[in-house]
């Protein structure tokens, strides 16, 4: 049973900047948690707090039910993959992998034979057998990445921490590594905390995601929940590509009004009232020829099988993802008339965030 | 390997190109000039330098057709700088040197020509008669007269009469014996004041003891006679002064003793005339007495007498003028000025008479002491005596040799130095 709990964890830096603001977060045993958020949101700090590389200002972190606030990093039994990999440039791959084991405090040190066994085991797992005698600078990006992961795993950590490990790789390699990481997790079941700003990684890898902004936890849920039921406007706009359309206005008596724009709220939102943001994901907003709200086309981004319509709806920018069937014409004559389309925003998946 | 080949090729090329140089020698065109370059070694912005400048100024006024360029050279570097400049053809016309410098400079020849001019052909006998004969002799090496003496320096016994009065010890007198000196020094024991403060690890301060016990350090031919009777006793005494009697400080630098004496923490010191000014500034009462006499041998302790004078470079293009300037700088007026303003002991007989009856009793005393001094023989390597003697003292005080062995070793070494 290795679970991780952040209880009211708070980090204020010496210069007064609040990195993590009263974070409460439970990570279950064997869970793959992705800390997601834009840069500077405090996700890396959270990870470093957990690793013991930063000191908590307040609150508590528990691993396995034990308060580890004051435990040195090494005692927490964690493995970490750094964004820059932090491989030792002067050591070979196998030396890099075994370094942690060789340098462990006497009481914890394992025998040389065991070290060798573990290194070869990890090398096999990560298909690094051929590179063991090479120096990091002779490796490709993906290989370095795997060495970094191997180095974290070789100590059989209770919790595996990864700080944007894929950000230095090209798109193709990133895809592959993503699958490999997921597979690795499924084989080992090690509790993993993974920091990224890439929502695709978050959606594909995570058991659950924790979305952070400004040091605060915004939502902690499964990727699906976060996507479909965002806890707030931030989560809604952060998750999904293109981003969710958010229109600021007032809901009253089952109708939403934002300046000149006004339409009936969908059924599940009839009850809301007061000022707030109305959100519709571009993929769910619909072009409704003849019956919808008129909108002026600003630009159409053609993505092949689909297109993104950038629209101006009474002064509000709205983007709509439009799927088309193969036979349709290039100029979207079926929906577009005179540079205008009509759209339907009151769809069943629409969201309303008060405030 | 290729690099080496390229380098060798280049060297050959360079050599071949140098070979293209025309071979005839240029005709020397530098005739007698009216510019004299003078290197002096007074310390910067000192009173001595000022006195010197005054004298040069007076010379300029008297010889308006001559222009004199004055260059200050660090005293400690005189020899190296002069030898280097001479080899490079940039020697000055006139340079201020100490007798110890001359034993080094005097032996140097370049293409068979000595660096400094023998002054005898340039001076009339009557001009030389002006100087105290011993000071002239002190500037001679291999018969040649290498410099005109401008000043002499010697050490004598200085004491602080206030301390003697305070501790009711009778102050030094000119007829003291060494025993009296030691008795007085011992009398200050347990008063918190050093009786006698001298750097006995430095040969310069041991030599007076040696001369009192065994006479001259060198025989008439200038050969060392360190193993003569008496010297070993003197060395034993100086050893005992430090280790058994604890009468002197063990330093090998005068600064320590000097500080003690000038702060009233030492009653007696054997000190040079050149430091009198410092004691005057320190504001203590200082009197002088002749160094004492050995009770048995009857010989007086004689310190080393050092001379400083002016040499003419053999590179000078206007030697008559250089000699004139040297005569001027060693002239009675200049010496008298230096005596009165900077307490410099003269070499000119008439000025010496002034000094012997000087209103400053210290000057008169030092002048009297100057009659009881010894000079080092002017031979190549003489200046090594300090090193040799220091080594002997070091061997003795580190217990590596007894006085006799140390001294005979020193004598052998000194002979070897002279023969080298």
């Amino acid at each position, binding site marked *: 049973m290795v679970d991780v709990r952040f209880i009211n964890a708070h980090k204020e830096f010496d210069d007064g900047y609040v990195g993590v603001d009263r974070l409460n977060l439970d990570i279950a045993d064997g869970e793959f948690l992705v800390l997601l958020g834009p840069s500077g949101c405090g996700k890396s700090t959270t990870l470093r707090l957990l690793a013991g590389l930063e000191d908590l200002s307040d609150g508590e972190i528990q691993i396995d039910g034990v308060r580890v606030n004051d435990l040195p990093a090494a005692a927490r039994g964690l493995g970490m993959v750094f964004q820059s990999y932090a491989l030792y440039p002067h050591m070979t791959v196998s030396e890099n992998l075994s370094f942690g084991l060789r340098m462990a405090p006497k009481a914890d040190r394992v025998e040389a034979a065991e070290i060798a066994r573990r290194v070869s085991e990890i090398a096999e797992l990560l298909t690094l057998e051929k590179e063991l005698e090479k120096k990091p600078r002779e490796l490709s990006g993906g290989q370095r990445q795997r060495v970094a992961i191997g180095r974290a795993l070789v100590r059989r950590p209770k919790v595996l921490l990864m700080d944007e490990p894929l950000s230095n790789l090209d798109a193709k390699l990133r895809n592959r590594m993503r699958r490999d990481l997921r597979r690795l997790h499924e084989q080992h079941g090690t509790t993993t905390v993974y920091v990224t700003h890439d929502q695709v990684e978050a959606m594909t890898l995570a058991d659950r995601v924790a979305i952070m902004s400004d040091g605060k936890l915004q939502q902690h849920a499964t990727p699906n929940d976060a996507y479909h039921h965002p806890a707030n406007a931030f989560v809604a706009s952060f998750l999904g590509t293109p981003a969710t359309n958010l229109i600021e206005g007032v809901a009253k008596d089952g109708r939403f009004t934002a300046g000149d724009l006004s339409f009936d709220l969908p059924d599940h939102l009839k009850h809301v009232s007061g000022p707030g943001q109305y959100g519709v994901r571009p993929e769910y907003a619909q072009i409704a020829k003849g019956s919808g709200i008129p909108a002026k086309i600003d630009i159409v981004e053609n993505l092949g099988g689909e297109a993104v319509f950038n629209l101006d709806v009474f002064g509000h920018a709205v983007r709509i993802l439009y799927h088309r069937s193969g036979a349709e014409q290039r100029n979207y004559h079926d929906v577009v008339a005179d540079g205008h389309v009509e759209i339907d925003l009151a769809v069943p998946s629409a969201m309303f965030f008060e405030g | 390997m290729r690099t080496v080949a390229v380098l060798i090729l280049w060297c050959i090329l360079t050599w071949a190109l140098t070979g293209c140089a025309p071979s005839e020698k240029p005709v020397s065109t530098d005739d007698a000039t009216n510019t004299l370059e003078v290197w002096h070694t007074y310390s910067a912005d000192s009173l001595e330098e000022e006195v010197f400048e005054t004298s040069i100024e007076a010379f300029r006024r008297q010889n308006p057709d001559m222009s004199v360029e004055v260059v200050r050279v660090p005293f400690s570097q005189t020899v190296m700088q002069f030898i280097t400049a001479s080899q490079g*053809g940039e020697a000055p016309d006139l340079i201020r040197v100490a007798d110890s410098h001359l034993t080094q400079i005097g032996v140097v*020849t370049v293409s068979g020509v000595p660096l400094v001019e023998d002054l005898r052909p340039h001076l009339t006998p009557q001009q030389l008669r002006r100087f105290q004969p011993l000071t002239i002799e002190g500037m001679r090496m291999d018969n040649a007269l290498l410099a005109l003496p401008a000043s002499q320096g010697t050490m004598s016994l200085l004491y602080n009469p206030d301390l003697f009065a305070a501790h009711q010890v009778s102050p030094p007198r000119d007829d003291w014996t060494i025993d009296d000196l030691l008795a007085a020094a011992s009398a200050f024991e347990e008063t918190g004041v050093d009786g006698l403060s001298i750097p006995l690890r430095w040969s310069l301060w041991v030599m007076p003891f040696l001369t009192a016990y065994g006479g001259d350090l060198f025989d008439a031919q200038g050969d060392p006679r360190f193993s003569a009777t008496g010297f070993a006793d003197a060395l034993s005494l100086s050893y005992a002064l430090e280790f058994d009697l604890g009468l002197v400080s063990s*330093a090998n630098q005068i600064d320590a003793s000097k500080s003690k004496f000038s702060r009233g923490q030492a009653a007696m010191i054997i000190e040079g005339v050149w430091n009198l000014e410092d004691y005057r500034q320190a504001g203590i009462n200082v009197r002088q007495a002749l160094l004492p006499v050995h009770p048995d041998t009857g010989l007086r302790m004689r310190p080393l007498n050092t001379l400083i004078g002016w040499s003419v470079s053999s590179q000078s293009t206007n030697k008559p003028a250089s000699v004139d300037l040297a005569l001027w700088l060693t002239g009675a007026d200049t010496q008298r000025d230096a005596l009165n303003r900077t307490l410099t002991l003269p070499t000119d007989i008439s000025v010496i008479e002034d000094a012997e009856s000087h209103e400053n009793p210290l000057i008169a005393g030092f002048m009297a002491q100057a009659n009881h001094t010894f000079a080092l023989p002017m031979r190549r390597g003489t200046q090594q005596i300090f090193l040799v003697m220091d080594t002997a003292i070091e061997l003795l005080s580190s217990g590596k040799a007894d006085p006799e062995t140390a001294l005979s070793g020193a004598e052998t070494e000194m002979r070897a130095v002279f023969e080298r």
Partner: protein
Amino acid sequence: MSRFWISLRSFILIVSLLAVLSGGAAYAQSVEASSAEDLTDYRRTGLELSLSGLQEGWSVEIRTDQHGVHTRIPVKDVFGLTRLPAEAALQACFSDGAPVHVDTDQQSVIGAGTQSLRCALTGLRPGTDVAVQAAIVDETGTLRAQSSEIRLRTDVSDLRLTPPDTRPILYLLGSILISLVLLLSALRWWDIRRGNLKSRNAYLYVGPAIVALVLLTFYPITYGIWLSFTDANQTHLGQSSFIGLENFGTVLMSSGLVQVGLFTLIWTVVNVFLHVTLGLLLALVLNRETLFGRNVYRTILLLPWAVPAYISVLAWQGMLQPEGLVNQFLGAEANFLGEATSARISVTLVNAWLGVPFMMMSLSGAMKAISTDMFEAADLDGVSRWNQFRHITFPNLKTTLVPLSLLSFIWTFNMFNTIYLLTRGGPYLGFGQPGATDIMVTYIYDVAFEYGDYGLAAAWSVIVFLLLVSFSIFYVRQTRATEAVT
């Protein structure tokens, strides 16, 4: 006749006058001729007098219109006085064919019975006519006799040290310049032909530095090496001859070699070790970002580097005196620089004091360049601080440490100032041996300037040079073999 001339050598020449003085009446005598080839000395000419009727207490005077009294020779009882050889005398005079007597003050005197006096007239102004007259004066200064006035003239024949001809050096420097340009152009052409187009301008870039370096140092070093094969010595500079490897033999056989060599080695190794370890230690401590007063500390610790070395060394020399600050603090009177062992330790420590700041500075720069991620990774692995230092910091500093320690080695090996200013190589514990704190370069200085033995000193220098070059090559090779970080 012959003995007389031989003893005079080229020293004396006779020009002209003979004056005979007797009983107060003076009358002129014949004039002797002089041979021109003897006229080699400068401002010196001769005078011969015939004398009679001298009395003790009187004196013989030679007067000129330039000087007034030129020579005054007292007439004394010469019994027991020595005759000083003419070449040794201050005043070269001969009475009755033999050098005159000298009294206890080394002054020339003659006896009352002297018949003839022959004197070298020194100090006459060259190139001018001089009127000379001889006289006999009694003790009151009254003139008793006087010769007729004769006119003399001296020629200038100056034995002058001619400045060395610098034109060969000028040609050498010119040749160096031209051949360097040729060499570099050739190399450039060669490189381009090899297809190494990228380096087309490389020689233009390194050219000025190489030219300046070679121009200034090629001649001196070649000269130094050449000197080591000659018997160059201060007593006959410019006349030295080739003696092969004799100087090297002397060096290798010299009894001081082992002592100086050993102390040089210890001095260098200990110093480099102290520079590197203390520099590293301080750099490590100062590397901590959060340390309070870090900048103040660093500024202070850099002082020994900023303060000119000769000043701080002299300050240490004062402080290490028996009355100095160190002893005051300890309440002791130790003579640190006077005893062999403590002097050796003192000079080493003072030099360490001088060298640590440079090392500290350079290393803390290099240390900053090491990625902190690596240390965090090691932290997570539970690697102890010491092991972090040993396995991460140190290997990553190696690329900086190798050249730095090499430079430090060379500098320390040739560090003249510290030892020279502190102890001058002393204390000396054996006659004719190097001092306890002499290292090779200070000993070379002594050999060159105290003993004047340039050839021997040059041989020592060449040996130092070869030692350092071979050490550097070895060191660079060794470290390159083990070094693996780019």
